């Protein structure tokens, strides 16, 4: 399957900038009450440039939400970040105290959750909750904050007259848009969106995605979009990280990953998309089950389900390989030296040819 990527990702200005967020070798464990350890994340690394939209995809349990929660340090009580760095504007967020971290939350990086009914407090009005965010971090007084609340709601397409209503009086799509408005309240530079459209029906989904795209363009916002829906990623993402079993399987600009997938998992994922042009074809699926995070195999985590495995896959864990050079991608890339290093297409598979990646 080839994905029609409408715009060229390779020549936009944002590709030249230094990364806003650099995740390096992030590893997270979950420790149960009895002491059993599940390795939810291992050695996860990727970059997010200013204004870039990064998709984090994978099946349930692959670690995409855990990654996001680790970055904002909002893991549940059992979570432990065991190694790595999270560099925001060069500063390691993991080295901060909880107090200092709070200063970053919402002001520099904000979050939009899945459209759960209860992501907004049911006993306060929408306006009150957005205003709380503004007053907490901003330097505005109350009346200025009130005006800003109206601006924000207006930007996401919610009528001013509804600002003093309660969350239960909003529809699902409206609630999601209200959450986006709230997330933008302090003008963050990075927005995390956790399955923002999963609970919505298709029409509303399109609306919300359109909104995200518009806002991002207008504000130059960087977005990390966590989802299992490849179609959504194709629509609005510049680059994508494919995760499997807590590790990065493949990562790169979207046109490269979608059109020339290197990792067998990515290949199967893309194949699983029904092709409207071939209605009679049997739907492809990936047999087997995701790995158990407290009993991980020594080799590649995808090996039990892989359709292209070789002997070494079961015993040795594959390193990340830079596959950019080995591909016939000359037509899509400028040969400017400075860009290449930040537009790497990497995959963790023994079958890939190319230099090892060291972050």
């Amino acid at each position, binding site marked *: 399957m080839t994905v029609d990527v409408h715009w060229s990702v390779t020549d936009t200005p944002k590709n030249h900038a230094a990364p806003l967020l650099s995740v390096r070798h992030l590893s997270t464990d979950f420790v149960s009450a009895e002491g059993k350890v599940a390795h939810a994340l291992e050695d996860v690394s990727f970059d997010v440039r200013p204004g870039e939209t990064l998709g984090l995809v994978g099946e349930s349990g692959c670690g995409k939400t855990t990654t996001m929660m680790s970055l904002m340090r909002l893991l549940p009580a059992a979570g432990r970040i065991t190694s790595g760095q999270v560099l925001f504007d060069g500063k390691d967020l993991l080295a901060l105290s909880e107090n200092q971290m709070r200063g970053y939350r919402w002001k520099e990086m904000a979050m939009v959750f899945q459209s759960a009914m*209860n992501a907004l407090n049911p006993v306060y009005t929408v306006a009150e909750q957005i205003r709380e965010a503004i007053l907490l971090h901003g330097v505005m007084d109350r009346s200025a904050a009130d005006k800003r609340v109206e601006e924000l709601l207006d930007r996401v397409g919610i009528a001013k007259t509804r600002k003093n209503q*309660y969350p239960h009086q909003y529809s699902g799509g409206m609630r999601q848009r209200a959450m986006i408005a709230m997330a933008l309240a302090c003008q963050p530079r990075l927005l995390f969106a956790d399955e923002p459209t999963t609970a919505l029906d298709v029409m509303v989904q399109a609306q919300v995605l359109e909104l995200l795209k518009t806002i991002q363009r207008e504000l130059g916002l960087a977005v990390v979009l966590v989802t299992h829906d490849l179609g959504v990623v194709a629509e609005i993402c510049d680059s994508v990280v494919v995760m499997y079993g807590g590790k990065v399987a493949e990562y790169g600009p979207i046109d490269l990953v979608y059109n020339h997938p290197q990792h067998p998992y990515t290949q199967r994922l893309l194949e699983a998309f029904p092709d409207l042009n071939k209605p009679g074809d049997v739907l492809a699926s990936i047999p087997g089950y995701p790995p158990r995070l407290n009993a991980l195999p020594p080799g590649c985590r995808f090996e039990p389900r892989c359709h292209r495995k070789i002997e070494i896959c079961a015993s040795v864990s594959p390193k990340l390989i830079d596959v950019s050079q080995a591909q016939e991608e000359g037509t899509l890339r400028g040969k400017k030296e400075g860009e290449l290093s930040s537009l790497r297409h990497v995959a963790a598979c023994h079958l890939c040819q190319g230099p090892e990646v060291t972050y």
Partner: protein
Amino acid sequence: MNRRDYLLRKLLMALVTLAVVVLMDFYLFRVLPGDPVRAVIGRNVRISREAQEALRVQFGLDKPIFPDQFLATVAQWATGNLGLSWSFRKPVTEILAAKLGNTLILVTLGQLLSIVLGVALGLFAGWKRKTAVDVSSLAFSLVTWAIPTFWLGIILLAAGSTWLGLPTGGALDTSNLDKPLWETLPDRAYHLILPTLTFTIVYLGEYMLIMRSSVLEVLSEDYILTAKAKGLSHWQILRRHALKNAMLPIITLIALNLGFTVAGAIYIETVFSYDGLGKLFQDALDKQDFPLLQGAFLLLAVTVIGANLVADLLYTYLDPRVKAT
């Protein structure tokens, strides 16, 4: 849901409950005892056959029980006439009115203390789970639940009067019975210490447990995570987001608890010979004074029903999900 509809439904339920109470009260004390004349004038009163017949006609007891006697009784009660007490030889209403104040003070004071302390402890215990405060509060609640109210009163009475010289009973000293209210306040307060302490201990555990449960549930909700992501501190989140949501079930509980609180008052007042409605109820029981029992029960039930209704009204103002659309 519409507030008006919600309240109308609650009002209807209150009326139904009231009807059940009235029916039961009438049946148990007028019908069940058998001879209705006896039921009205008492058991130990000697009376000639002619006088009995005259009374029978005078009280309308020759008419059928339902609906005539019943409706007559209801009409009588509605006007505040609850009959004549057999043991006191005074109108029941008068007796009840005299004792009401003492019970109100005791119950209000005890409940207020246990609510305030219980809610505070419950908030802390739910927030800081598995810490010493949480574990010891849980243990305390468990144990106080298992302790019979009257026995706790006895223990405190024995300990308090023996070791601390606190009064052994009564609402106030007998020498102060005829003094005006403000003069007797310190004495009353002195007599209230042990009964109120008993009351508070008994209900403190329960409020703590409910508040803790409520807090645990609220703190697991998504909007708490949102608040955390916004950069609020734990204390800010507790105060602004968790507290209001966690308190909602407490309001309902306080109202519901009123019935059980009345029970507590009966035991505590009996043990401490505290001159209130509870002790009156117990005395009436002892002496088999039916009109008094009947009237006291009616008063207690009506108060609880009324309080529940007020709590329902309050709830609609606190929970926006029950506002008028």
